[in-house]
């Protein structure tokens, strides 16, 4: 009897150890990944690298064009996708009746979020690059990327709007507010930190995406800073891919250096998102 019990306990203990090791291995993986990149690329990150254009000579190559391309694209995507995404979320949460159509839109958005990014690339190539003849421009890339992150923004914004208690809306309606007055003055301000967090996370998705931009033809030699939305462009991940796909090891080090820059940007954005989330948790204790 005691023997069986101790064997059961042993099993439970072994399981617990395995689960613990599995969980902590993600941290180890992350450390190895970052360490590997730092090892390969840290020595290359310097002013010349940040301030030079790409070159076929590794020691002269830099990521200035890519940084500016990424900044441009990020700004354009924010201008295009955020208003549409937040509007759609407001509509679905505050206006749409719970009927078949709104259910269909919801399912559709969830499924769009799971469509492989390269399919968005095919969409962008056909619609924006070819049909609207935007060519390999920043605008074409940004529109494609906006469609890609729209579902993410909508879903995050909906969660944030949903978290605003119903009683606040009823309180506003009870003093004779219209729906829009209620949303504008109470729902949106209270949901803003949550929406902001979601938007930053969606943006960090946009800044790291590569495949859709390759599809629309952004993998070209760009040795200048884009000046308007019709200019061709390159972005950080595109430039990184370009270097990774070359056989020479010097270019791999450049790729690692590029990755360091990209990850610094991403981690900063993520940290900002977490900071905003924690602050708003303190401010709105419903």
């Amino acid at each position, binding site marked *: 009897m005691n023997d069986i019990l101790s064997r059961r306990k042993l099993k439970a203990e072994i399981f617990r150890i395995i689960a613990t090791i599995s969980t902590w291995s993600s941290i180890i993986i992350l450390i190895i990944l970052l360490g590997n990149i730092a090892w390969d690329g840290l020595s290359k990150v310097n002013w010349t690298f940040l301030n030079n254009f790409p070159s076929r000579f590794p020691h002269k190559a830099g990521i200035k064009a890519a940084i500016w391309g990424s900044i441009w694209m990020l700004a354009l995507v924010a201008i295009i996708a955020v208003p549409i995404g937040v509007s759609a979320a407001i509509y679905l949460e505050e206006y749409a*009746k719970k009927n078949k159509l709104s259910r269909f839109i919801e399912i559709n958005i969830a499924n769009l979020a799971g469509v492989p990014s390269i399919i968005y690339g095919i969409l962008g190539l056909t619609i924006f690059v070819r049909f609207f003849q935007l060519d390999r421009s920043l605008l074409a890339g940004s529109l494609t990327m906006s469609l890609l992150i729209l579902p993410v923004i909508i879903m995050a914004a909906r969660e944030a709007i949903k978290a605003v208690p119903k009683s606040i809306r009823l*309180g506003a309606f009870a003093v*004779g507010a219209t729906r829009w007055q209620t949303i504008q003055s109470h729902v949106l301000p209270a949901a803003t930190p949550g929406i902001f967090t979601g938007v930053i996370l969606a943006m960090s998705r946009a800044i790291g995406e590569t495949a859709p931009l390759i599809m629309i033809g952004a993998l070209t030699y760009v040795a200048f800073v884009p000046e308007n939305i019709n200019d061709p462009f390159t972005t950080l991940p595109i430039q990184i891919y370009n270097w990774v796909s070359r056989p020479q090891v010097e270019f791999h080090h450049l790729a690692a250096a590029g990755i360091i820059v990209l990850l610094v940007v991403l981690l900063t954005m993520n940290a900002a998102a977490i900071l905003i989330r924690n602050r708003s948790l303190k401010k709105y204790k419903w």
Partner: protein
Amino acid sequence: MNNKIIIEAKNLTLRYGKHPAIRDCNIQILKNKVTAIIGPSGCGKSTLLRTFNRMNDFIDNFNIEGEVLFEGKVINHSDMDPVEIRKRIGMVFQKPNPFPKSIFDNIIWGPKINGFIGNQQELVENCLIDAGLFDEVKDRLNSSAMELSGGQQQRLCIARAIAMKPEVILMDEPASALDPKATMKIEELIKKLKKSYTIIIVTHNMQQAARISDNTAFLYEGELIEYGKTNSIFTKPDKQQTEDYITGRFG
């Protein structure tokens, strides 16, 4: 009862989907009186109350038969803008629900969006005085309403309703989430307010209804069983069911 009628329900039947919450209700609410609606939980008190300012519009499968009249006009038809109705019939909810803004903004917001152009400071102060809250908050009108106690928040919500200068104030169990002391303050306030406003209060607390109301309606399972002067309802009710309920035999 020779007073003026302000709200009237005629053959009113309310349903959530198929399930009737109120059946064929006829009731006349008198101006400048406190009317209490009592009954066991689930009897449809809140549903009836929310029909008077069309708060049930926000429930998807809610439907309504019969008529609700406000000052003689039918208000439950879809061509009637509920926003206009709610400006004139205010509401206080079960749980205090101040906006997550300053005390000042809580009160001024309603008048402001409805085009108020007078002296804001004066309006806010008057409303706070009327709601019996002014002395407690006069030094911190710009601090957040969320920092107030539950009872203070509820009086702020009453002040917010008063700010619209409504004709009627609906109160849906306004003291049920409060402690006895805060409840007492709310009750005193209601007695004071009835001079200028018509008040309809839903409560599950019979003593409260007896203490503060002029007229009482007893609802049971969606039907209006009895309606009359509070005095007579609580001392010599006509119906057996009413007597059973107020003497605590069920409910």
